[in-house]
C-alpha cells in the first residue's frame, strides 16, 4: 500500500527532553573508536573554547533514530517497518552539542513520494535546547520497498 502523500508537511510534537551527559559522549566515542580528548576531557574542551566536552558529529543519532522509530510506528502513516531501510542521513550542526545540553527534537515529514514501486519519506528533525537555541538539523530519507520488489 503506498504511503499517504498528504503526510508531507506534518509536524510531530517535540520529544521529551534529552540531557547530554559526559558519560554518554565518552561511551559513544569509545563505540566508534574516536580518541579525541574533546569528547572526554572537560578541561581540554574548555581550552578549545567549548563549555564542556562536545559530542562526535553523528552522536545525535541517539535521539534522531528514536524519533524516526516513533514516526515509523505511527499507525496512521501505515508504514511497513519490515520493508523499510535507512536511505540516507545528514546532520547540519549550528553548534556542537555538549555535555549539559538539554535538547528537544521536533520532527517534520518534508516529503513523501513513490518512485519505481518504492515509497520514499524524508524526515527533518530540528534539535534545539529547551531554551530554543538551535543545535542541529538532521534529515533522513527512509525507503519502503514495494511489495513486488
Amino acid at each position, binding site marked *: 500500500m503506498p504511503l499517504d502523500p498528504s503526510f508531507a508537511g506534518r509536524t510531530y510534537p517535540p520529544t521529551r527532553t534529552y540531557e547530554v551527559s559526559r558519560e*554518554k559522549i565518552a*561511551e*559513544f566515542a*569509545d*563505540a*566508534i*573508536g*574516536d580518541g*579525541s580528548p*574533546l*569528547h572526554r576531557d572537560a578541561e581540554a574542551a574548555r581550552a*578549545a573554547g*567549548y563549555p564542556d566536552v*562536545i559530542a*562526535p*558529529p*553523528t552522536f545525535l*543519532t*541517539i535521539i534522531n*533514530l*528514536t524519533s524516526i522509530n516513533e514516526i515509523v510506528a505511527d499507525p496512521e502513516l501505515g508504514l511497513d517497518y*519490515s520493508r523499510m*531501510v*535507512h*536511505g*540516507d*542521513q*545528514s*546532520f*547540519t*550542526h549550528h*553548534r*556542537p552539542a555538549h555535555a549539559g545540553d538539554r535538547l528537544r527534537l521536533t520532527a517534520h515529514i518534508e516529503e513523501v513520494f513513490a518512485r519505481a514501486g518504492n515509497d520514499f519519506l524524508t524526515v527533518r528533525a530540528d534539535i534545539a535546547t529547551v531554551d530554543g537555541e538551535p543545535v542541529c538539523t538532521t*534529515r533522513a*530519507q527512509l525507503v519502503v520497498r514495494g511489495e513486488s520488489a
Partner: protein
Amino acid sequence: MNAGDQLPALSVRVTREQLVRYAGAALDFNPIHWNERFARDVGLPDVIAHGMLTMALGGRLVTDWLGDPGRLIEYGARFTRPVVVPDGDEGALVEVTGKVAEVRDDGTARVDVTAKFDGRTVLGKAQAVVRVS
C-alpha cells in the same frame, strides 16, 4: 587546506563486539545488527554493520584530521551497500579515505569521504563541510 589534499586514511576491523558496543551507545537495537538468524530470515547474508556506524567512521576520519571535531559543521551520506560482519576476530575490514574537494570563499571546505568494504563503496555521496580554521 587546499583542494585535492588527501586525509590520512583509516582502516577499521568492524567486529561483532563493536556492533554490540555501538548498538548500546547509539540505542540502535535493530536485530539485523546482532542476530544472525534474524538477518538471514530477512534475506541478508549475515549480520550487517549499522550504516550509521560506517558513517561515524567516516566522520572520525574527518575530525581526526581536523583535530577539533567542532569544526565539522555538516555531514551526510547515503547508505548504498551493507558491511557484512562475520562472527570471529577478523570482523569486516572497512577502509575510509577522504580528500578536500573544494575550499570556499566563506571559510569552509567540502571534504569527500569514501568508505570501502570488500573493494566496493558502502557510502554514497558522503560529504562533510568543515570550517577551514
